[in-house]
């Protein structure tokens, strides 16, 4: 159990800056998720925490102890790899026991026969055996303890990798996309297992993923990264409801937040195309000139066309996904401010509950729940507060 502090952590490879000035304060027992697209530097940051990559500048502290110049083994952190990285020539039992053997390792363990017996003695000592077997029991691996990793399924291998991390009772668990190689069903099950593992084992978790569902469901806090820079470091709820910039707004949520080009019309009103919308009290006075209105697809609803002072448009596409339907709407006289895709500039997404009977080409009006809206600067993309 330990707190984790990163101060001005930067990593450069030659002239390329992979991580730029990351500052994070992770409290004891927290489940931090590093979230971001491929190549955003989240794995590199995790490897720097583990000591597998050096820190170019900045400091990493575990509790009060500075660790960034310590070797990986001296940091008391366990690392779970995306690829599991089990020792293929060792049984499951030996894989899980291995970190404990290494704690008592002496140079003469390299002597062939002597080393074999010495390692076996540690493996069979009551305290080690009990710990390994109770860990295996927790992870439902008891029946597989004497098998080789190659005879296990992906999910079982992943649990062995977790077991190898757990027996060390480390201060910090580091996990690099540990579920990304599993199929969807198993991933959901393992996600629940990891959450309960965090609850039962305690310890500080740092978890890397590009999957926003994993991030939202598992993390006590999320650090959303882009191009080596932490965009926002907050709880899942805050990141979802109060994204700090348009990038975060578009990264989180399926479908992502709609961004619309808008103009301030006095301190309390907003104009989108020809439509004038009243701003709720918290947003009064924030907008001047051109702004970007951010609104989740769930905060939009379809009304009939007779309703005055709303956005109107034509249905472009309806996708039924069971409990709800996703509707792509082609707006009249309004443009979206999405900078992350090449799609049409006049379409937004709406989520409606149940099975929508709308067909493409239908004319509809929109009602916007402005209490859930956020405003961004049109120039910088930063949220206006």
């Amino acid at each position: 159990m330990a707190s984790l502090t990163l101060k001005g952590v930067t990593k450069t490879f030659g002239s390329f800056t992979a991580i730029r000035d990351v500052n994070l304060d992770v409290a004891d027992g927290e489940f931090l998720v590093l979230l971001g697209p491929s190549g955003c530097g989240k794995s590199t940051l995790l490897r720097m925490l583990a000591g597998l990559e050096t820190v170019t500048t900045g400091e990493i502290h575990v509790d009060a102890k500075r660790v960034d110049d310590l070797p990986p083994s001296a940091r008391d952190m366990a690392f779970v790899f995306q690829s599991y990285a089990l020792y293929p020539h060792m049984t499951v039992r030996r894989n899980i026991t291995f970190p404990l053997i290494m704690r008592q390792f002496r140079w003469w363990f390299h002597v062939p026969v002597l080393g074999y017996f010495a390692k076996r003695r540690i493996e069979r000592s009551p305290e080690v055996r009990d710990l390994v077997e109770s860990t295996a029991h927790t992870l439902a691996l008891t029946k597989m303890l004497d098998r080789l990793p190659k005879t296990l399924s992906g999910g079982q291998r992943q649990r062995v990798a977790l077991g190898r991390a757990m027996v060390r009772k480390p201060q910090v668990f580091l996990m690099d996309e540990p579920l990304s190689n599993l199929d969807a069903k198993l991933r959901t099950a393992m996600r629940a297992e990891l959450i309960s593992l965090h609850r039962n084992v305690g310890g500080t978790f740092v978890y890397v993923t590009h999957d926003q569902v994993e991030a939202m469901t598992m993390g006590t806090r999320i650090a959303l990264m882009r191009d080596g820079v932490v965009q926002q470091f907050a709880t899942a709820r805050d990141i979802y409801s109060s994204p700090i910039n348009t990038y975060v707004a578009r990264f989180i949520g399926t479908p992502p937040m709609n961004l619309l080009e808008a103009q301030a019309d006095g301190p309390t009103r907003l104009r989108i195309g020809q439509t004038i919308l009243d701003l709720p009290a918290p947003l009064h006075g924030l907008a001047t000139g051109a702004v970007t209105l951010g609104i989740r697809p769930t905060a939009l609803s379809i009304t009939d066309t007779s309703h005055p002072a709303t956005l109107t448009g034509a249905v472009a596409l309806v996708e039924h996904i069971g409990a709800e339907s996703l509707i792509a709407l082609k707006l009249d006289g309004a443009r979206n401010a999405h900078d992350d895709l090449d799609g049409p500039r006049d379409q937004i997404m709406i989520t409606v509950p149940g099975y929508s009977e709308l067909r493409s080409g239908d004319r509809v009006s929109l009602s916007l729940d402005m209490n859930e809206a956020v405003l961004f600067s049109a120039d910088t993309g930063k949220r206006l507060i």
Partner: protein
Amino acid sequence: MSAEDTSGQTAGPLRIATVVVVLMAALFPLYWMFVTSLTPSAALFSVPPRVVPDLTQWSVYAEAFFEIPVRVWLINSAIVAGGTTVLSLGLAIFPAYALSRFRFAGKGPFALGLFATQMLPEAMLVVPLYAIFGQLHLLNTLVGLILANTAFAVPVITWILKGAIDGVPTEIEEAARVDGCSRITIVLSIVLPLVAPSLAAAAVIAFFHGWNEYVFAQTLISDDKLRTASVGLAGFVGELSTPVHSVMAVGIIYTLPAVIFYLFVQRFIVAGMIAGSVKG
């Protein structure tokens, strides 16, 4: 994986015929040696030649052991081959690991330089080696012979092991580092077991190199007691007479330990050591 792919195929008659033909081509010289060794001198050049061994002639093997110092030669050869194997593997493991895993100045030239030693014929190096060994008092010692053979075996083995280590996923090593392994423990406890098949192949190469080597053994050793089997066997071919059946008998004896060593080691040359470690 490839082993699994081929195991499903049925052995068709053409396949079996091919295997039989190739096997016969490979084994016939051995069989001919065996038949010749058991053929009385008088019948050696009979036409047509004998194709069935004369099993009353076993005494030629007893002669080889008790009248010719074959035992001593074989022991010397075993020491040289065994020493070459152990020393070559020991010396090649670490450069192979370094070539595979580290980036350092001069890595390319170093790796190529290893090949340079393979480009020179042994015969060309005999004279300088003789001079050097003379100064170091290594002439007429099996240690000297082991060193000379090792110098030729190490580069090849280094490359074989480098290729094998390249195939070990780096995540496994990183996992070991996090688990508390030093670099040397990683090499000895994690990497070496995973490249065991290549290690076995390298051992075979080193052993056969030491076992078969002739030029150095002939030049650097002059003491009869330190003679290796390759030189001893060649010494049979006399200027005036060559006892063909004895040569063949000793030849058979000379071949057997090498075959046994190979059969022992080849059990380790199996594929799939790394399977199960990382998601394929």
